């Protein structure tokens, strides 16, 4: 049930919201990455910087997301479902699939088959280490942190590097207790 409704909700918000041209969006992101590469001259530093930028976006984006959606996530499965079906749909116009759960149900992968950001991108050999989509990882980490879930998100597979699809791996480290829980003493 949760699956269907989160998909429908993402769809509705997408239809209501204002859109920007997808090409403009892809180009803007592309020039941002290129600018970072030129200025920092070090690919791992670029990756780190992209993640931090995403993190700062995520911290604010989550309120935008929550104010436009009515979501309650009881389990990590719900959370993953909402990110994949509502979140990605609302901000990127695509949905992704949730797979590869580990046994403890605190790690999962988001599979992006189709991605507006990478449509015009080809990475040449010099940039083999570049994590072009590291910003998305940061967004997820920042957004989850604001709802008291500590997580780590990494770019596991990248369609720009010859993989079939893009895979973001999300590891939930800790769910910070609700502040209203009574103390032990």
């Amino acid at each position: 049930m949760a699956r269907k409704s989160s998909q429908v909700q993402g769809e509705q918000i997408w239809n209501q919201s204002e859109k920007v041209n997808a090409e403009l969006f892809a180009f803007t992101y592309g020039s941002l990455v290129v600018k970072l590469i030129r200025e920092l001259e070090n690919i791992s530093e670029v990756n780190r910087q992209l993640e931090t930028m995403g993190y700062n976006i995520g911290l604010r984006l989550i309120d935008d997301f929550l104010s436009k959606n009515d979501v309650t996530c009881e389990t990590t499965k719900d959370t993953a479902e909402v990110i994949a079906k509502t979140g990605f749909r609302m901000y990127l116009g695509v949905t992704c699939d949730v797979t590869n759960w580990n046994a403890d149900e605190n790690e999962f992968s988001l599979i992006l088959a189709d991605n507006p950001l990478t449509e015009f991108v080809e990475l040449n050999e010099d940039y083999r280490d570049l994590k072009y989509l590291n910003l998305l990882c940061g967004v997820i980490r920042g957004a989850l942190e604001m709802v008291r879930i500590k997580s780590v998100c990494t770019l596991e597979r990248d369609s720009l590097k010859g993989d079939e699809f893009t895979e973001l791996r999300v590891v939930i480290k800790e769910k910070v207790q609700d502040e209203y829980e009574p103390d032990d003493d």
Partner: protein
Amino acid sequence: MHYHFFIVNKIGLIIYDRYYQGTAKLSANDMIRFSSTLNSVHLISAQITPPNLRKTGLKVLNTKTFKLFCYQTTTGVMFCLVSDPNSQDMESLCKKAYQHYSDYVLKNPFYETDQQIRIEGFDQAIDRLFLEKAV
């Protein structure tokens, strides 16, 4: 009719307030006293919630002369509205205010989170929200 609207951040400080219908302003000291009392009441009411119920904290306060409504978001920011006792639909107003907050305040790159909100566009949006409905 609405009298007073304010936003409390997640550490319990009032970061925004707006008065309507000629409501007298609280002095800075009263404001601090008020926000800390409100926060304590909110936390205590969550603590004394019977088990098995959702601990949402203070939501509505009804009195003969006014009604106080608090809407707390998942991220911990609280939107509060003081209106006359017959007011309806205060929750949806607070949710609308939350949308304006995410649009006008959080998308402003010069706004630092958890600081006082001084943004003209947001003032106007909030005024539109609470004055239109008041008629």
